[in-house]
């Protein structure tokens, strides 16, 4: 049996004005378990808290009920008071007789009656309270960043800057991501490589950062502060520690006709290759699908020309397991395939390209050395048509396209149009748009410059059909402002393809038990207030894996994710919320219902041996709650049919007791 003290606060006249506090403390004194009851003008004041402390000592109280303002206001205060007087802070319950009683009821009689009932419910609950201690778990002071694009790079640099070691896992042979493929960046038109490559070098040179390029995460176990991650380092057949990146092998390899993915297949590379000049790490990689030596043991040219002796045809995939305290997902995006939009003749003509391909065509390091030339015949195009929203903003149930706005296309198209007109004033540039969306600093100004200074023809309407005829692309489109159909003989058509999360994101989300939306973007712990955290504790989101983003936004989010990681890694121990779910293993049927509804993946199942009353042992499948991961929502307790799962601090019997006290 508890020894409960009841403390009724007047809150000046805030409570005492409508509630007869004397009557309340008198009535509650008669409740079961109550050994002391009093009232005071301001319970939260130092003097009020002293009354509580003294009563705890004098009456050997084990539980406290404070009838006062909302627990959202002073629960923490009174818990501290109790703790300082030597009783467990979770033995305190608050009856909210101000916000939910005296302030909303005018009549003293009903106000007093209700305050008594609320006090009674709190007493009934405290009678069943048990001391709770938040769990402590140590934190591995190392972070993992999955994805080595600008989001991952920035996050890693910021974390490393705070002094914590960081590993980047990148599935491609080099870090850099999509930004490395871009030409200029909006709205300032600085060159992407000029601002990105120094950061890539910083990453390479930072002692706190390790790069696992050409690698993938294959397994994730553990929880916040204590993740165990298995990383697969794919065999690149070149020893990273020896290769100097001289590139001799990439010039001598006889396999020349392999589409170069870095230039989106618009030129070719060898079977041994370095994706681009500023690659980090700058080491060669052998493409096993095209290498003669690996396929049929005949060749070995690269090994012969490599003076460093870095080639290793016998290399195997390696697996290593590392410990991390926090994981940042930065898996980025890709343009969607255009094969379902053949009204734009993407598969029929080389001169219908995506915007990312256009970036490569304009890039000095691209397949044309930065000269804008038609992929089909290498001629200089005079008439260019840009089509916006290809695959974005489609009907939800459409089989092709995405329901969302891809966000970045309006701005990069304005950039493309502007750059084209700037470099080649002899061109005519048409942009077909549905809406021009420019909410960003200097964005609308940028778009207006494209129209006003560079004379780009912005036409509100959509292209219906592109027909390759001769060496022209006949574009048929609507002009909604002039209410006419227009026909343009274009030399190049550029499609602003919708962007989608990288395909690696979904299996990764499963490994991380992080949730995703129907479009495979990672969901945030809270869409407004916790935008860089996943609902899974210890997993953070950076960049376009969470939703379409431009570079400034990505970098901002990357920094925000890094600061959240730093905040976590700064702690030696994580203090949990003690109000967590707890299964009674003897009652658990092992049905997995709780596991299914847990939004945090905090519940797992183990086969456990139990000693039965008849002295036999029995192996049963039972639920286990990871208290470091559980956030205490209680959803599992209702999903549990046998009542085995309960929530500490809000136990079934406690809530039943409150209900009973109110309905008495």
């Amino acid at each position, binding site marked *: 049996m508890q020894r409960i003290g009841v403390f009724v606060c007047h809150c000046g006249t805030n409570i005492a004005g409508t509630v007869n506090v004397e009557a309340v403390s008198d009535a509650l004194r008669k409740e079961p378990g109550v050994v002391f009851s009093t009232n005071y003008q301001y319970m939260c004041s130092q003097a009020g808290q002293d009354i509580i402390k003294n009563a705890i000592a004098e009456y050997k109280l084990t539980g406290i009920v404070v009838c006062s303002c909302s627990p959202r206001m002073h629960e923490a205060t009174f818990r501290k008071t109790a703790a300082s007087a030597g009783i467990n802070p979770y033995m305190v319950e608050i009856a909210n007789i101000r916000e939910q009683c005296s302030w909303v009821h005018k009549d003293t009689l009903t106000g007093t009656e209700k305050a008594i009932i609320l006090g009674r419910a709190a007493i009934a609950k405290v009678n069943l309270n048990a001391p709770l201690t938040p769990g402590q778990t140590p934190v591995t002071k190392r972070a993992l960043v999955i994805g080595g694009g600008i989001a991952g790079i920035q996050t890693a640099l910021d974390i490393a800057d705070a002094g914590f070691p960081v590993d980047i896992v990148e599935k491609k042979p080099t870090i850099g991501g999509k930004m490395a493929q871009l030409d200029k960046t909006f709205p300032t038109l600085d060159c992407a490589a000029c601002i990105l490559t120094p950061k890539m070098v910083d990453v390479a040179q930072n002692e706190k950062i390790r790069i696992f390029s050409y690698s993938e995460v294959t397994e994730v176990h553990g929880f916040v502060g204590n993740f165990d991650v298995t990383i697969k380092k794919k065999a690149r057949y070149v020893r990273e520690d020896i290769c100097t990146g001289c590139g001799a092998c990439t010039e001598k390899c006889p396999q020349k006709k392999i589409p170069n993915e870095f230039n989106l297949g618009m030129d070719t590379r060898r079977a041994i290759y370095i994706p681009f000049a500023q690659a980090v790490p700058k080491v060669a990689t052998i493409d096993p699908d095209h290498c003669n030596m690996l396929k049929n043991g005949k060749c070995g040219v690269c090994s012969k020309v490599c003076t460093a002796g870095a080639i290793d045809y016998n290399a195997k995939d390696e697996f290593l397991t590392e410990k991390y305290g926090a994981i940042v997902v930065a898996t980025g995006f890709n343009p969607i395939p255009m094969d379902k939009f053949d009204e734009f003749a993407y598969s029929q003509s080389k001169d219908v390209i995506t915007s990312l391909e256009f970036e490569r065509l304009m890039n000095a390091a691209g397949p044309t050395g930065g000269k804008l030339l038609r992929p089909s015949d290498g001629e200089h195009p005079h008439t260019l048509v840009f089509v916006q929203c290809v695959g974005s903003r489609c009907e939800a149930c459409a089989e092709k396209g995405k329901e969302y706005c891809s966000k970045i296309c309006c701005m990069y198209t304005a950039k493309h149009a502007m750059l084209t007109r700037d470099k080649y004033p002899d061109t005519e540039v048409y942009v077909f748009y549905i809406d021009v969306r420019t909410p960003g600093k200097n964005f609308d100004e940028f778009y207006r410059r494209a129209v006003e200074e560079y004379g780009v023809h912005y036409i509100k309407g959509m292209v219906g059909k592109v027909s390759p005829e001769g060496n022209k692309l006949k574009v048929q489109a609507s002009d909604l402002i002039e209410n006419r159909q227009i026909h343009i003989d274009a030399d190049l058509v550029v499609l602003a393809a919708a962007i989608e999360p990288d395909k690696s994101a979904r299996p990764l989300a499963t490994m991380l038990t992080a949730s995703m939306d129907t479009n495979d973007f990672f969901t945030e712990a809270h869409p407004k207030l916790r935008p860089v955290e996943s609902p899974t504790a210890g997993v953070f989101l950076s960049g376009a894996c969470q939703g379409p983003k431009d570079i400034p936004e990505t970098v901002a989010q990357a920094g925000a994710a890094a600061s959240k990681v730093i905040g976590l890694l700064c702690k030696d121990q994580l203090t949990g919320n003690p109000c967590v779910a707890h299964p009674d293993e003897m009652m658990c049927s092992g049905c*997995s219902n709780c596991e299914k509804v847990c939004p945090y993946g905090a519940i797992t199942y183990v086969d456990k041996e139990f000693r039965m009353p008849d002295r036999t042992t029995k192996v049963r499948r039972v639920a286990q709650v990871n208290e470091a991961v559980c956030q205490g929502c209680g959803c599992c307790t209702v999903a549990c049919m*046998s009542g085995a799962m309960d929530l500490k601090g809000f136990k079934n019997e406690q809530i039943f007791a409150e209900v009973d006290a109110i309905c008495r």
Partner: protein
Amino acid sequence: MQKVTRDILVNKAKELLANGTVDRVYGWKKGEFAYDVTPALFKSEKELDEFVFGDFCGANVSKYLVAESKKAGGKILVFLKPCDTYSLNQLTTEHRVDREKIYAVGIPCEGMLTGSALKDKVDSVLSVETEGDTVKVETLYDGVKTFPASDLLPDRCRNCKSKKHVTYDELIGEDGEVLDSGRFDEVEKLEKMTPDERFAFWQGELSRCIRCNACRDVCPACTCEKCVFDNPKSGLENKAAADSFEEKMFHIIRAFHVAGRCTDCGECSRVCPQHIPLHLLNRKFIKDMNTFYGEYQAGEVVGNRPPVVNYTKEDIEPSEAVKRGE
């Protein structure tokens, strides 16, 4: 009525025991009366002499596998009617049975008669035989009486939902199809009544409950280690009801606990000594889940996620859900 005979099943059992596929068999044996057939475990070829099969083998033996499959030893042979296979799948989904330890032989079912319906019609039954669709009953005092078999079929068979075996290791006879049954007609009829009529209906039905717990004990979805109604710590412990509300509370909570997991096997109504149509509670949940969240049949596929532990962002609001009937 049944197309499979006892001998076919016994021969199959003997064969599987002999070749070591299984080391015990769950089937049925004779009870006190002709219509009173009860599930039983047979551990040897010899014991199989007592194995019976006929038109009163309605008992769903899936639930017995919860305990049996966790015991040491080899595989257990079990003969499952189509509707029993749904239960086995659901229990597999919930990790309540070890499917690897079970050798399930699917057997066709032509509908199983209930003893309680028979007892309502005649007294002192000596023997029962079915020929085609006619049931011949020999009684102690009234001689031989005949009934059409349909008179003795429970609702679950008259509105059979499926003749298809959703899981089996071996099949005797041909597999059937999922049927387009009228199993929700009765529920719809109730929904069309006024609230007062519904209240009166259920008051009439549920007040007969004697809390014998037979419905719970037979239910293949009720396999908790300890039932909340028996557990003093659950806050719901209630061994016997003291007034009419507690019956309602017991049955609502029981129906809610099995919602999304109940395969509609109808065992609850079969065993109820008070003839309470308990399946109408379960079917209400099934019907609601189908209309609100899309067609769902518990036990159809192993690993399916029941609607109560799932959601979509566009789900119906509770206020809309109760307006449907209006």
